[in-house]
């Protein structure tokens, strides 16, 4: 088992640097090219949104950024680490120490309290119980749900569940937060609350965020919007231009 210390991705100017990344599923005539050469950098503390029609490669992009998948060709540097050279377990350790995930479907453990849900990533880090509790409470406070810590996920509304999920993602103080359609299952009011929360975390805690969305309103919260079409970056908008 590789020790966490051997994956040193503690600092660099860019959090993420993709160079010529392709991802092909299958081979030969039936091969499907999900990404066809993507170059992208995400700076420390930056908030980017990834948009595009379905089949444009958004999910593949998120999987690669989240180190759940590796490029078929090209390089992915996470800070100073060449992710494509890491095996499954080393990528798991990278995720454990530097990444946070927020999903469209929340993915909380249903019959488990909010506090225990938030503690989960720290459990895998082997943090002592008291430290876990304190960090989980702090994270729940940051998302405004400290009062709900003993409620199980099933007892919370959709918006609250997503906020617990965000607390779970930030409890490890990740270098990059990956959000896959975080507002996809929420109404517009709940959605803007979530987006404001993400923006606040981005500004105040300096957590870099990469978010996939197909709602322009949500993308507008980001510093930069990357438009994917057919596995290529078609357009990049800066916020200044967007507004």
């Amino acid at each position, binding site marked *: *088992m590789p020790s966490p210390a051997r994956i040193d991705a503690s600092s660099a100017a860019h959090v993420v640097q993709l160079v010529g990344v392709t991802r092909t599923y299958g081979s030969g005539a039936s091969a499907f090219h999900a990404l066809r050469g993507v170059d992208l950098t995400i700076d420390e503390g930056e908030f980017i949104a990834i948009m595009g029609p379905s089949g444009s490669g958004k999910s593949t992009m998120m999987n690669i950024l989240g180190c759940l998948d590796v490029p078929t060709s090209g390089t992915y540097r996470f800070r100073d680490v060449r992710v494509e050279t890491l095996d499954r377990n080393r990528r798991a350790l990278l995720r454990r120490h530097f990444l946070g995930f927020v999903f469209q479907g929340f*993915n909380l453990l249903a019959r488990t309290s909010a506090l225990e849900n938030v503690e989960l990533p720290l459990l895998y880090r*082997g943090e002592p119980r008291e430290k876990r509790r304190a960090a989980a409470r702090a994270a729940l406070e940051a998302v405004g749900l400290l009062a709900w810590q003993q409620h199980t996920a099933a007892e919370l509304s959709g918006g609250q569940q997503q906020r617990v999920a965000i607390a779970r993602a930030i409890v490890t103080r990740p270098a990059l937060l990956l959000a896959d359609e975080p507002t996809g299952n929420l109404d517009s009011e709940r959605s803007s609350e979530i987006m404001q929360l993400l923006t606040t975390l981005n500004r105040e805690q300096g957590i870099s965020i990469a978010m996939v969305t197909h709602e322009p309103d949500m993308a507008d919260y980001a510093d930069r919007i990357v438009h994917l079409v057919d596995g290529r970056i078609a357009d990049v908008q800066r916020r200044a231009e967007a507004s």
Partner: protein
Amino acid sequence: MLWSTILLAFRAIRRNAVRSLLTVLGIVIGVAAVVTMVTLGNGATRSVSEQIASLGSNLLMVLPGKRLGPGRDSAGAPAFKIADVAAIEVQIGALKAVAPSVTTGATLVHEAKNWATTVTGTSRAYFAIGNWKLVAGRVFSDAEEKAGKAACVIGETVRRELFGREDPVGARLRVKQFSCTVVGLLRAKGQSAMGNDQDNTVVMPLRTAQRRLTGSRDVGLLLVSLRDGAASERVQDQLVQLMRERRRIADNEEDDFNVLDTRQIAQAMSGTTRIMTMLLGAVAAVSLLVGGIGIMNIMLVSVTERTREIGLRLAIGALEHEVLLQFLVEAVVLSSLGGLAGLVLATIASVALARLIQVPWIFDLQINAIAFLFAAGIGVLFGSFPARRAARLDPIEALRRE
């Protein structure tokens, strides 16, 4: 890490309490069956040995007849005589006592009640050889024995059936056609290893029985009790040799009598019960195995059901072996809890059943430990396949699953 994994497993089991209970039911029943069977079997073995020991330790029985078993032929074999007893006493060392014995069925009558029993005619040595103790009165005296007086000692069952609350000592008892005086009451021994009631007995002097009941001078059986530490085989050889001489059996002829060692019978019988115990235990162990398959089934369901959870755990950085360990520990904790419940159930069941079938209840640490470890082992065995399946899941696929 292991401790938190175990806590996690407990949490998962508690969350699905009913399903977990149903899952481990097979293990619970399996462990309970194995432990109950073996515990009762041990009790039965112990009680057989104890009953045989109550016959008297180091006891040899000499019976007329060619050989024991099917086709046994005792018709041509002459009975023993009282002189054989004297000869054995004189010629063979290392003996504690020798007693002749004739037994015959007889109906007893006392006042308005009658009762069928077995009457034994013997010498005073019979009581020491058979470990018989007296509750009241005395055994017949040497003089009564020699003279063939009508003095008898009765067993507990005879007393209960004929005398009720009356004190039997000194009372008159009619045995078949003659009347005799009850001089003593024997302490109860209970059932014999063969299942007959040892207390349903009347003991009187050999001569009395011969004259009044059997009408012959034959002795049916010789009881020979060895001194402690005497070599049974050597005494048996000497007995055989002596009896062959006395019965004038030629060198090329078979013995027309048998020498049995009660200790050997005891060993054979407790050996049989032990084998029965093992067989029953083995049958019960099969149900344990079936219980294990139940665990595997439920763990597979659990892995499928929790695919998204596993995906999430992998995504937030759980390593393959950590997920494997989680499910393995869950299976082991589940089967161990089942094992524990099975032990508790077995204790309750075996105590109750032991009382019911009247065998002693003996706690056997070994079988309890083996059954528990076996249950836990089944958790490892049948939990590892589902656990491996969980650990190998692709987090992307797993998260996408509804």
